[in-house]
Each structure stands twice: as C-alpha cells, then as structure tokens.
C-alpha cells in the first residue's frame, strides 16, 4: 500500500503494509541503515529516531503512526545540539564497537534539544533505554556534559 512519510525533511513514498514497523521501512525501503535493529522489542534503544522532536523506538511503531509527522534519523539529525554531540563524541572517543551508538546519539540529542544543561540524573533517565554491550556509559555521560558546555 503506498504511504507518504516525511523523513529527514523529505516526503518519501513507500509501498508498505501500514502495520510494518517503522524501522523496517527506514532500513529496507529507504535504505537508511544508520538506524540499527537491536532487540525488536523496545528494550535496547538501537533503533531510536526522532518523531516531531521526541525519541521513538522505531521497532515498535507501525509506519502508519508517523503519517503527517516529521521523522529524523541519524543521517538527518542536524540541530545545534546534534553538532555539539557529534563533536563531543569524537573528542571523547566515546564509541567502542559502535552498534548502539546511533541510538545513543539520537537520545542524547533529543535530551539536549530540550535541556541545555542536564544533570547526571537527567542524563541517566533519558539514556536508560539505550543499552551498550561495550559499557561505554561513563563516556556517553561525559560526552553529553561536554556537548552541553559547547551549547552554553
């Protein structure tokens, strides 16, 4: 069934069952493979995207849920917070294996878009749904604080 969804600022037409998980459409139909499949049950956060500025686990949302809304993936995220996060991530060499990092970055950006000076608690609560098997959590938190300083 033809559907139009707005992804990274562009209207994209896809031929998909409305109940298809958004993640499948992003990766398979649109070829945007920066968003990762981790668990498929909203437990790991690897598939996190932004919809109307809020985080969304794209594995657990039907593509029909984003009709008329703005989806941003790791390929399209570009706010000042996103640029600060990118810089901090590189400077602190946050990434280890990297598989979870697009989800981590999307959650970090969503937090900093809304709160420029988050506390440790703010960070822990916002990032609690993104797991990292390499346990880069300390560097992630430090990088979010570093990005916040850049934004100040």
């Amino acid at each position, binding site marked *: 069934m033809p559907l139009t969804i707005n992804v990274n600022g562009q209207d994209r037409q896809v031929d998909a069952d409305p109940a298809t998980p958004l993640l499948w459409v992003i990766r398979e139909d649109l070829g945007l493979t920066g968003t990762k499949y981790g668990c498929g049950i909203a437990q790991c956060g690897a598939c996190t995207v932004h919809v109307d500025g809020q*985080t969304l*686990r794209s594995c657990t949302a039907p593509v029909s*849920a984003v009709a008329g809304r703005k989806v941003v993936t790791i390929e399209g995220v570009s706010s000042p917070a996103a640029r600060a996060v990118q810089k901090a991530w590189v400077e602190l060499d946050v990434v280890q294996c990297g598989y979870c990092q697009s989800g981590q970055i999307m*959650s970090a950006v969503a*937090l900093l878009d809304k709160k420029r000076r988050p506390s440790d608690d703010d960070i822990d609560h916002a990032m609690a749904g993104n797991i990292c098997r390499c346990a880069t959590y300390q560097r992630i938190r430090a990088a979010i604080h570093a990005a916040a300083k850049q934004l100040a």
Partner: protein
Amino acid sequence: MSSSTSCPALRALVLLAATCGFCSAFAADLRSPDSFSGIADKTERSRALFVEAGKVIQSPRCLNCHPAGERPTQGADMHLHSPLVIRGADDKGALGMRCAACHQSANFEPSGVPGHPLWHAAPKSMAWQQRSLGQICAQLKDTRRNGGKSMAQMHEHMASDTLVGWAWQPGGARDPAPGTQAQFGALIAAWIETGAACPR
C-alpha cells in the same frame, strides 16, 4: 489407581485443575451486583461490592500503572519496568524518555509492547501499590487525592475510560483484568448506590 483418585469428587477436582483454560476463565470472573442482594445490611453489602470490584483494582493490569513511587511495574509478577523509566513531572516519563517513545496508540503485536493514545502512570496521589483495599477505597472517595472527581465522575472513569478499558484488552500473552469493564462499572455503580462503604 490410588484410593484417593478413585473418589469421583476428587477426580473431578483433579480434572478441573488440569484444564487450565477453564480454571483461568473461572478465576477471572466477576460476580454481578444482584448476587450480593442476600446481604441485608446495606453498608455490609456496599463493602462486599467493593471487595468484588477490588479483584479488578488489585489486578496487575491496574496496579502496574498505579505505582507508589517513581517507577511503574510490569508483568503478572509486577517487576520494575524494563527499561528503567520514571513517571517524570507529568506522569508521562522523563525528558528524552517519554512513555510514547515505546508505547504507541495501540498494542503493537510485532514487538509485544502495549499501547493506548493516553498511556501514562496514575499520579502519585492515586497510587494503589503498597496500599490495602480499604486504603484504596478511601483514596477513591477523597477529592483531594482522586483528581477532584465526584462519585458520578469516578463511576464514569471506571466504567467508560478507554485507558482503564485497556486492562481488558492488554494484548500479547497478558492476562486481562477479571470480568469485563461493563461488569466492573456495574459493581462500582452498585457500590456508590449503597453508600460507597469501604472495607475495614
């Protein structure tokens, strides 16, 4: 065959226990308000009606989202919600980790994540976990803690609110709350009509 299982009544019980589906349906039933008409004392009848309604109120489907603390629970065993989530300032999650990050407008069977358009935790003043049924009853009648609801509005909430109604359509392998929302609403209506007495 042992002498105990040769007893027809016991054998019937063993068979009943073995038919899990039937037992589950039986355990999940709710009595009708009329079935309490044998209790002559109106206040005692009211209490008994609320105890019956309490089978719903204290089911995991309802208690999980009425946490006493910051974190909701999940599952029949009411373990802490995973991943870690908090109620946040508006009972809809933390900044950057909102309920709607995972819970969509309907149950999503491919992931097993439940959903409803108004998914949120009940406010702290409406916490049901770690409270007795009598304490919950008193809380439901207290307009300072029940969101300013009159008893008519409370009945409306229990009988018609669609988020309350999710408890009977939880999706996945979750057991629904006992009975139906209509039966639950009828019990609450009868409880209010008989004076809304609380269990001791």
